[in-house]
């Protein structure tokens, strides 16, 4: 067999899956065809084996159903107490998830994976609990029957006639690391049932009648075996992939299934899933939005969203297309994706509609060309639409009803005025006009009322005999019918236009909002500003309150200290947010996890890590979020997450850079500084000891000279130490820039006052414009910069030459220059001299930190510093500081003190 290189993408995916599972627990599923096959028993046996091998096994939740053998196996295992949850007066016992997490065993036994939790638990479904255990690194043994598989749900219902309500998505089983099939032949199971090993005696008869018929059991057993075989097959496939073996199937199939709001779509989805699994094909679930068609109701949209979710949970790629002609859209999309098979539902509407409007199915079949089209029927038992949830605001406000009655009254008034002078047709027109106007303003109900009232009033007032509803001439009924029909159709059309405009406006608003958000986020820098603008946009667009929660170093979310429009987050809400953060899954209101929370929590996930959580509280407790809104919020959250990650990465890069530089500094420091410290120390020690030992024998002049040496060298030493400390603090981020509005003149004054004697040999010329504004800076640090620059100038220039200090204001910054008349800087050194431990050629002493400190301080202020040579000789050091708009001063009346009251 020819070796083939493994598909890198697939390998990457597999590697990622491995990576994700690292540190996670392993899931072992005991899979059976029906209750009573011995899954729990097998699970307990396996648990005992592990236990005997020394592993820490805990029975988190095991249902023995009073079966004796199972009970005896359970004895001796550590049993965790269950949580008792009271719901509507009934106490239900559930697995205590937090207790298991706290106990943190190596293996937890959790029976009945498909179980639905009591309301009030953290998750709706037990398999979500199990996933949380796995995430916490706990291995889980669990049991499940084949009838609970989502994709097999309809088949099971078909075979057994029982619709199973508790289902688990197929992906849950796919996630299992091991599946152990627990299988006994139907005869054996029936035998056990008779012996009372499955159910207690009184239930046996009923169970046998309903479920435990040999035919059922055979079919279920086949399903279970097949499902297991499929899985083994999939494992084989991934093994082949990993080993780079040639794939055994020739061409990839791709299936497209068309779904809509019709409940039959569920069956279409399941069929597609099975077919896809059988063919090992990818599959795509497509829904079409066609503006030409009647606008779907809110109810339909919810239904459709549910179907799409089902498809997604079964592993489909979900796509929504929009276009004028449904069939064309389906076919062109199918072609673009190389679909080989289209699954579409049998039409349910009467044939005349097809004649009139054309049949989508017919068009798809005709246009399909090389693509196979499978037409699937839905079955009546399942196709029962779910009990309709009442649209939230179906009742029109009273105002609209009054408006429709009033409108008809006005039309009647006008018609009465016209009655003598115009024909009846004109009067009918007046009513029609009135109804159309009303329809443009009010809802469906009031419009219908207006239509009926209009026709009734027309009859009552203007059709002989007057002022009765009786009609003499039968021909008038035609008039009524036409009038009613025209009014009705017109009002329907008006409504549709209004609703379409409304939904377009909403979509437009959301798109625009998203666009604005991303544009604004692109400009913001800090994390605080980013979250603030995200919060602001969310609140504006969804009329809600929101908050961005970020984790601290330990990964605990905290309520931000500052921020606009934050609602009160109590400990309970915070723990929901924390859950969303830890599990990277949305939680809270309108989700499957902790739906009792007040607000919805969306994790901010970007490029593989969670940045934080955004909490969204609806504006009022009545107004909940529609799935569409939640979806839009999720795109908001994504945008925000990406921007926040950008900010976080930038901060981290900065941190890392700082760290590296600090490290380098420390090592260089030791080698470089030790020499510079020793020289003055040696001088001080020498002079001091001489004074101490032979003070009396020294001449007055010598003694004075030695004392002078001690004082001067000590000062020198002090300067070096001060520089080293400053540098270290700057580099380690220990220096805080304490920005205040400072006057440069004052800073210069302080500096000249501090080094008075030094300018004896170097006249210092200071040129500061009198209108220099206040600058936001740290006075102490900037004085240090000036001091270092002047000291540098003094050190490198011959005695008697001038040094000048000047400043100019321009373009949002203040530029300060220190110029000397020394030898200048070799061009190749212009950058280097600002590095640490670099000294110029003519240096007399010092560690070479002065200019590095200047650069550090100026950079911390957001300014720049550089050195260049003057054409007339000498070096110029220039630094800039960003200027700001100083806060306004309270104007003081320019009165002289003489005028003031002498009190």
């Amino acid at each position: 067999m020819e070796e083939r290189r493994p598909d890198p993408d697939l390998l990457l995916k597999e590697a990622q899956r491995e990576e994700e599972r690292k540190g996670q627990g392993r899931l072992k599923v005991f899979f059976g065809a029906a209750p009573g096959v011995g899954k729990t028993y097998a699970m307990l046996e396996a648990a005992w084996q592990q236990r005997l091998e020394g592993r820490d096994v805990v029975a988190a939740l095991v249902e023995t159903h009073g079966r004796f053998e199972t009970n005896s196996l359970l004895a001796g295992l550590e049993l965790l107490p269950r949580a008792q949850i009271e719901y509507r007066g009934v106490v239900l016992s559930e697995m205590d998830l937090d207790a298991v997490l706290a106990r943190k065993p190596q293996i937890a036994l959790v029976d009945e994976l498909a179980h639905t939790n009591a309301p009030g638990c953290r998750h709706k479904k037990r398999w979500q609990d199990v996933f949380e255990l796995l995430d916490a690194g706990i291995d889980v043994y669990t049991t499940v029957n084949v009838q609970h598989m989502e994709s097999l749900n309809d088949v099971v219902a078909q075979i057994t006639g029982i619709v199973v309500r508790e289902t688990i998505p197929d992906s849950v089983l796919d996630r299992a690391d091991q599946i152990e099939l627990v299988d006994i032949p139907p005869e054996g199971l029936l035998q056990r049932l008779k012996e009372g090993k499955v159910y207690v005696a009184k239930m046996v008869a009923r169970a046998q009648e309903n479920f435990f018929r040999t035919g059922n059991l055979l079919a279920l057993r086949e399903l279970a075996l097949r499902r297991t075989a499929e899985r083994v097959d999939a494992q084989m496939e991934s093994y082949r992939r990993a080993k780079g073996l040639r794939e055994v199937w020739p061409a990839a199939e791709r299936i497209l299934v068309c779904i809509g709001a019709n409940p039959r779509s569920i069956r279409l989805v399941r069929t597609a899933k099975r077919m896809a699994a059988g063919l090992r094909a990818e599959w795509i679930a497509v829904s079409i939005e066609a503006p030409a068609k009647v606008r779907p109701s809110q109810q339909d949209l919810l239904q459709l969203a549910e179907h799409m979710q089902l498809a997604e949970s079964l592993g489909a790629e979900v796509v929504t297309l929009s276009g004028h002609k449904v069939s064309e859209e389906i076919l062109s999309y199918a072609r673009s994706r190389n679909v080989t098979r289209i699954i579409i539902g049998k039409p349910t509407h009467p044939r005349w509609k097809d004649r009139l409007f054309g049949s989508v199915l017919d068009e798809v079949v005709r246009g399909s060309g090389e693509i196979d089209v499978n037409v699937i029927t839905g079955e009546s038992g399942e196709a029962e639409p779910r009990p309709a949830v009442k649209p939230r605001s179906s009742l029109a406000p009273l105002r609209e009803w009054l408006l429709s009655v009033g409108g008809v009254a006005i039309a009647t008034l006008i018609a009465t005025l016209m009655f003598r002078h115009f024909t009846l047709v004109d009067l009918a027109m007046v009513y029609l006009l009135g109804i159309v106007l009303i329809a443009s303003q009010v809802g469906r109900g009031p419009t219908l009322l207006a239509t009926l009232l209009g026709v009734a009033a027309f009859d009552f007032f203007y059709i002989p005999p007057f002022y009765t509803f009786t009609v003499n001439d039968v021909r008038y009924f035609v008039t009524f019918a036409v009038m009613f029909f025209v009014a009705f159709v017109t009002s329907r059309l008006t409504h549709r236009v209004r609703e379409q405009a409304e939904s377009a406006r909403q979509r437009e608003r959301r798109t625009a909002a998203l666009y604005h958000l991303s544009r604004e986020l692109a400009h913001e820098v800090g994390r605080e500003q980013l979250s603030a603008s995200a919060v602001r946009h969310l609140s504006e667009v969804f009329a809600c309150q929101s908050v961005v929660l970020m984790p601290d170093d330990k990964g605990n979310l905290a309520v931000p200290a500052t921020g606009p429009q934050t609602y009160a987050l109590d400990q309970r809400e915070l723990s929901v947010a924390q859950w969303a953060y830890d599990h990277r899954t949305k939680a809270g209101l309108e989700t499957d996890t902790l739906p009792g929370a007040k607000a919805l929590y969306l994790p901010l996930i970007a490029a593989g890590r969670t940045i934080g959580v955004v909490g969204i509280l609806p504006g009022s407790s009545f107004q909940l979020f529609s799935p569409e809104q939640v979806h839009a919020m999720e795109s908001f959250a994504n945008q925000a997450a990406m921007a926040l990650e950008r900010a976080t990465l930038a901060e981290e890069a900065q941190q890392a850079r700082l760290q590296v530089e600090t490290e380098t500094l420390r090592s260089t420091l030791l080698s470089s500084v030790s020499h510079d410290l020793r020289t003055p120390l040696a001088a001080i020690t020498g002079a001091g000891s001489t004074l101490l030992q032979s003070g009396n024998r020294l001449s007055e002049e010598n003694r004075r000279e030695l004392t002078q040496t001690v004082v001067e060298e000590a000062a020198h030493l002090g300067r070096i130490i001060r520089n080293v400390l400053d540098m270290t603090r700057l580099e380690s981020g220990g220096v805080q820039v304490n920005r205040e509005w400072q006057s440069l003149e004052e800073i210069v004054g302080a500096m000249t006052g501090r080094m008075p004697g030094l300018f004896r040999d170097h006249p210092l010329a200071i040129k500061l414009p009198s209108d220099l504004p206040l600058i936001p800076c740290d006075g102490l640090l900037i004085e240090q910069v000036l001091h270092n620059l002047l000291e540098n100038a003094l050190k490198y220039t011959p005695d008697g030459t001038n040094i000048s200090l000047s400043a100019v204001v321009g373009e949002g910054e203040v530029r300060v220059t220190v110029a000397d008349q020394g030898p200048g800087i070799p061009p190749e050194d212009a950058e280097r001299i600002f590095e640490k431990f670099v000294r110029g050629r003519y240096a007399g002493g010092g560690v070479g930190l002065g200019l590095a400190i200047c650069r550090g301080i100026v950079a911390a202020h957001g300014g720049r510093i550089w050195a260049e040579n003057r054409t007339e000789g000498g070096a110029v050091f220039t630094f800039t500081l960003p200027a700001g708009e100083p806060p306004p001063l309270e104007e003081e009346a320019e009165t002289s003190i003489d005028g003031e009251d002498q009190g």
Partner: protein
Amino acid sequence: MTGENEPILLIEDEPQMRRFLRVTLQSQGYRLFEAETGADGLVQAAGRKPAVILLDLGLPDMDGLEVTEKLREWTTTPIIVISAREQERDKVRALDAGADDYLTKPFGADELLARIRVSLRHGARQEAGQEDSVFQSGGLEVDFSRRRVLLGGQEVHFTPIEYRLLTTLIRYADRVVTHNQLLREVWGPRQANQVQYLRVYMAQLRQKLEADPARPRYFINEPGIGYRFRSGEAGF
């Protein structure tokens, strides 16, 4: 002998510093009492009745700020705090709490003696309970009773705030006055964090009274702390 036997209390825990200060101060004729801890210092301040207290901010048992506050509960004796460079913030807090002046390590003997002289003079003036009605330094003459300021014989006009600022600084002549103190005394407690007011008005004072504002003779800026009006009498 300039000390005239004035008693000085030194609260300092480091022996080398105590030795240096002892030699310097005693050679100038001061009587020196030493305390190694804040608690001992407080006791001695009550018992010895010193004319000036030198207080190190880095004491082992007590925060320098706390010592200052406890002293200020019952005495107005001038306090000069001695601090290292890292204690910038403590220094300002101690000054705001009532300390009169400060010295930053390392300092020279001349600086120390000048500070002590200024403090003694202020202490004496306070005891006498009277302020001179006319202040004079170099070409600057301020007549408090007539609210008139002359520079080189020429009258200089001020706005009320400028005048209050000038007289406040002169009242504390040669001692440091923190930004907070100045803002409170000149503008009132409400504006206590508006340092930019101070900068603008100080610039106006310098424009009116200094020959070269970048090399001030009277108004000395102590970055990060406050201002000091230099009268020229103290010798620094």
